[in-house]
């Protein structure tokens, strides 16, 4: 390779900068770490902001301007909201009304930008459909707008920041650099976690020197994330289109597709989050966890306390509670209580709020009916669970079975497992109709001969299958250890240094040998980066 080709390759690589691309680990992250460490403490946040903007621009080009403009807007709005809160010259009630109005302007503006970039075509096309029903078909010219990187994530972070300032939980930051860094910090901009300003701010802006333990533990966490992403998710990825984009009439194919996609998505998303958390950890920033062994949850509601945790807690704090406690909702609940009794009233307010939470969850994932269905799917299951939990426990008492007995746990696991994979099947389905056909086929045509006969046509060789399923076994073993509070890290740390080093070398080699990459291979896009 001559110098020209090398530079050309480098530029191509640079244009493709994302977590799973080695460029990030080989160049971007180490250079950022070195420059950060060599810079005076008070300027280090500028290094992080500069690195974040370079990262953003390399993936999203001029759309960086949108992120910067929104940062300036959020910074200014928060200061405005705080000014109103501190203005003791007006009465408390008027002050609250004025503050809420300003907050509403802030939130609506942010949402309009999000809708403008991501949902206009969806709204337009559905308007056309509705107009056709009324016999006056309208036209919609597709805009196909590209959205700024991570807009779904940083919009929620911005909303949480403004709301927390309005709630006087945190103070508005006078520094524009701080707010801009919070809304663009490179590890979390692609896929979250959706962190809160109050949790992030101290370590993010402190400019502390990098510590050896943070550096090693950060890189270890990154290695674990790479293992999940490259050895499992990316090896499984080529089979997913074959499973979801063929015919929809074979139950075995549908069921395996649902299972395989669930594995791919979990490994891709949670692996990327490991990389994010590890990258932030290098700079001494401990980010909120986004996954805690979700498949060990006891029901659908518990699953969402363990899967994409920061999205769930965002909806809980900024939609579920405010809606449940809103005066009109509480008044309505009281009416229901008078008419139908406490039993029904108990579910009224939370159910109204829950519906809005899951509608928002579906819409947040993107402009597709399958995503909205996915949100409603969990709304229905969580609603049913809330109603049936009490009778189910009473039934267990009647048959003398303890809630924590093995039989009950196995039953709950199997039930939840199917709820999850069927949900993911609809989530991934090409269209709503295709999802319904696949679902039907599980009950009407469940056979596995077609799947087994075509196992060689899933774009995965034997070697990839071994990688995926051996890798999966390792992740399951580690998850069990974490769930039972086995101190994995402490045990590793207590090993003699040569053994410890040998362990990490083996891990790196496993990633290199079994990872899906190489000539002609382009690393799979991050699934959750598209939302």
């Amino acid at each position, binding site marked *: 390779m001559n110098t020209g080709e090398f530079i050309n390759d480098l530029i191509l690589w640079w244009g493709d900068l994302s977590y799973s691309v080695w460029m990030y680990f080989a160049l971007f992250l180490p250079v950022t770490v070195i420059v950060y460490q060599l810079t005076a403490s008070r300027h280090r946040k500028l290094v992080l902001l500069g690195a974040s903007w370079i990262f953003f621009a390399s993936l999203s080009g001029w759309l960086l301007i949108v992120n910067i403009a929104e940062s300036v807007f959020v910074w200014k709005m928060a200061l405005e909201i705080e000014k109103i809160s501190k203005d003791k010259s007006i009465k408390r009630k008027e002050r609250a009304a004025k503050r809420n109005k300003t907050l509403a302007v802030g939130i609506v503006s942010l949402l309009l930008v999000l809708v403008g970039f991501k949902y206009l075509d969806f709204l337009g096309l559905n308007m056309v459909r509705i107009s056709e029903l009324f016999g006056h078909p309208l036209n919609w010219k597709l805009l196909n707008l590209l959205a700024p990187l991570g807009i779904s994530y940083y919009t929620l972070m911005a909303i949480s920041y403004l709301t927390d300032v309005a*709630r*006087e939980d945190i103070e508005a930051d006078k520094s524009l650099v701080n707010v801009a860094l919070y809304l663009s910090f490179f590890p979390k901009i692609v896929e979250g976690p959706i962190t809160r300003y109050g949790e992030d701010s101290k370590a993010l802006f402190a400019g502390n020197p990098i510590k050896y333990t943070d550096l090693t533990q950060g890189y270890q966490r990154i290695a674990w994330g790479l293992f999940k992403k490259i050895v499992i998710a990316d090896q499984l990825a080529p089979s997913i289109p074959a499973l979801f984009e063929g015919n929809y009439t074979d139950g075995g194919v549908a069921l395996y597709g649902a299972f395989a996609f669930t594995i791919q998505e979990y490994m891709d998303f949670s692996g990327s989050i490991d990389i994010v958390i590890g990258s932030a950890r290098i700079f001494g920033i401990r980010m909120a966890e986004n996954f805690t062994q979700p498949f060990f949850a006891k029901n659908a509601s518990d699953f969402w*306390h363990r899967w994409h945790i920061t999205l769930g807690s965002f909806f809980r704090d900024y939609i579920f*509670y405010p809606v449940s*406690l809103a005066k009109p909702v*509480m008044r309505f609940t009281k009416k229901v209580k008078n008419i139908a009794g406490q039993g029904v009233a108990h579910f009224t*307010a*939370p159910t109204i*709020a829950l519906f809005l939470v899951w509608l928002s969850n579906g819409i947040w994932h993107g402009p597709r009916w399958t995503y909205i269905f996915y949100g409603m799917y969990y709304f229905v299951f969580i609603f049913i669970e809330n109603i049936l939990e009490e009778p189910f426990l009473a039934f267990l008492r009647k048959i003398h079975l303890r809630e924590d007995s093995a039989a009950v746990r196995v039953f709950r696991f199997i039930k939840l497992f199917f709820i999850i994979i069927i949900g993911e099947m609809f989530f991934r389905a090409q269209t709503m109709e295709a999802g319904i056909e696949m679902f039907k086929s599980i009950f009407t045509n469940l056979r596995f001969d077609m799947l087994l006969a075509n196992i060689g046509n899933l774009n995965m060789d034997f070697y990839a299958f071994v990688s995926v399923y051996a890798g999966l076994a390792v992740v399951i073993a580690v998850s069990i250890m974490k769930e039972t509070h086995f101190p994995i890290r402490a045990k590793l740390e207590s090993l003699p240094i040569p053994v410890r080093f040998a362990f990490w070398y083996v891990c790196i080699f496993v990633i290199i040998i079994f990872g899906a990459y190489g000539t002609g291979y382009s690393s799979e896009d991050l699934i959750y980066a598209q939302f």
Partner: protein
Amino acid sequence: MRDRIIEILSGVRADVDFEKETELVSGNILESFDIVDIVAELDDEFDIEIGPKELKAENFDSVEAIEALVERLMGDE
């Protein structure tokens, strides 16, 4: 006040030992549905208004924390 709070809590969740627990929310013992019920009852009983900003683990993790929250809000009135 403490006894009345425990009564309200036990009315919502009879299966929890509220005297002992100190991680009602952070330990995932109380679900968000329970919190909404508890807040509605506390609002009625003590004539206060618990807003969404108060719904944090530290205000609901134990009977003592809830008592402190109610006292603070009664003082605000």
